[in-house]
């Protein structure tokens, strides 16, 4: 694994109606890293992730993906779609197109490479379908390929979203609370899938509020509070005392809630 920078965030600042959501956030993620963003709800995790692939634009600061600035002081890169196609994004609510089939949802990962003339008629080539089916097999839901996405369970939908990232050929996967809407068993499957993909060289950045999950799966964590980086380092150093000193009484939301039961 090379040590080049996959993501570099510098002085990223954003506020919603005068309330700061991100406050001069800076950090670097090396290629092949597996990073967790920790924080209570409203601490800026989602905002940060959405800024990294330019779904949101910050007021100030730079986000660099593989040495290309995707946004620079409040302006998106002119070829943002090309950059975005290298970044897979997984949402808490899956964000699959519910009336399309599972296979079509996975094929959507190809859109950045498909010419407009073909996508006007929702046409995909045979090898693209083959590749998409292979991705579905990889995440373990090949049988459901021709069902509507809305008929799948939450855990299965999230795996479709991961298959979509695979078809994208994403080198980075950003996951925004990927397991918060899932039952413990599905959550475990999704996390293990992300870990495997990381071992194959994909950089993974995940926001989570379950500290147990972070300790189980992630070597490095960044803790946010009120849009500010309060901790950045090895997960072992993010012990309960450290968390309490960062979050005060809000720490209960992090440690006690969520999928602790899986790990018992």
């Amino acid at each position, binding site marked *: 694994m090379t040590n080049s920078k996959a993501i570099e965030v510098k002085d990223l600042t954003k506020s919603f109606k005068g309330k700061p959501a991100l406050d001069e956030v800076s950090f670097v993620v090396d290629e092949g890293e597996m990073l967790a963003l920790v924080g209570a709800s409203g601490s800026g995790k989602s905002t940060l992730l959405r800024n990294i692939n330019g779904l949101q634009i910050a007021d100030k600061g730079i986000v660099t993906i593989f040495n290309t600035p995707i946004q620079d002081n409040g302006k998106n890169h002119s070829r943002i779609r090309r950059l975005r196609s290298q970044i897979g994004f997984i949402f808490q609510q*899956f964000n699959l197109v519910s009336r399309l089939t599972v296979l079509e949802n996975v094929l959507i990962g190809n859109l950045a490479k498909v010419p407009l003339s073909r996508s006007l008629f929702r046409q995909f080539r045979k090898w693209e379908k083959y590749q998409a089916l292979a991705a579905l097999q990889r995440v373990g839901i090949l049988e459901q390929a021709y069902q509507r996405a809305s008929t799948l369970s939450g855990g299965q939908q999230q795996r479709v979203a991961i298959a979509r990232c695979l078809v994208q050929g994403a080198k980075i996967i950003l996951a925004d609370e990927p397991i918060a809407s899932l039952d413990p068993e599905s959550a475990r499957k999704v996390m293990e899938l992300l870990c495997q993909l990381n071992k194959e060289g994909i950089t993974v950045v995940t926001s989570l509020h379950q500290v147990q999950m972070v300790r189980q799966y992630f070597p490095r964590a960044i803790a946010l509070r009120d849009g500010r980086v309060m901790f950045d380092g090895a997960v072992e150093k993010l012990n309960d005392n450290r968390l309490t000193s960062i979050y005060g009484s809000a720490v209960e939301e992090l440690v006690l809630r969520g999928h602790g039961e899986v790990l018992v």
Partner: protein
Amino acid sequence: MMQSENTSDYLSSDNNGKGTISAEVSQMLAKEAKRVTTGKVIFLVATIVILIFSYRQSELNFPLLFQRGENMVEYIKSYFPPDFSYWKTYLEDTLITVSMGIWGTLLAAIAAIPLSILASENVCPVWIVQPTRRLLDAMRAINEVVFALVFVVAVGLGPFAGVMALFIHTAGALGKLFSEAVEAIEPGQVEGVRATGASKIQEIIFGIIPQVIPLWTSFTLYRFESNVRAASVLGIVGAGGIGVLLYQSFQSFDYGKVCAILIILILATSIIDTISAKLRNWLV
């Protein structure tokens, strides 16, 4: 009984235990809207004034109906028996009328797709949305018959003028309805598509259209029903269809023929309504 007792117990203990709750309750009660307000009185008066004014303007005179009752009976009698001697011609013209409805609606639906996207606030910026909406308003504001008069001059007498008239008016109506469906979509699904690096057009095709297709189809079928009805009138101004014969029979006081045409029209429209209602139920 048990339940109501429990409830009253609960309420009274709360009232005794904490004075604060009853204070909050009474505060909430004070927030309840008053029955009679000046606004409501003004509204009521205005409604009555408008009703009286419009009654006079439209020269409503219900007693007249009864005064001329005998004439009415005579007149209605002259409609019967219906005269079906030209039923073949009527059927052919009804087919023309339905065909006008089909093509007027189809062209309108095709034109309404891009127009509705341009008129949706969640897709396009306001400087595109507002002009498009005004255009749709203009298309809708003018009745099919008026458009038919215009197109009869432009392309001559016949069904084509009628199709164009239906097309313009319906495109305005469908554009508006379609865009309302687009504005009610789930934004997350579109964002999922956007995050893969898809372009704006790809976002629309893969993220928006699959979500709105059932509603769009239903709207289009509904407009088809009403367009067949509208097409039967367009003949009166020379824009083709059964309306031409209807008007001619009226003019020559051939009420038996008028009756026959009306019966065929009622049959045709109810058949179409039934079929398209079935289709819509099946689609949505």
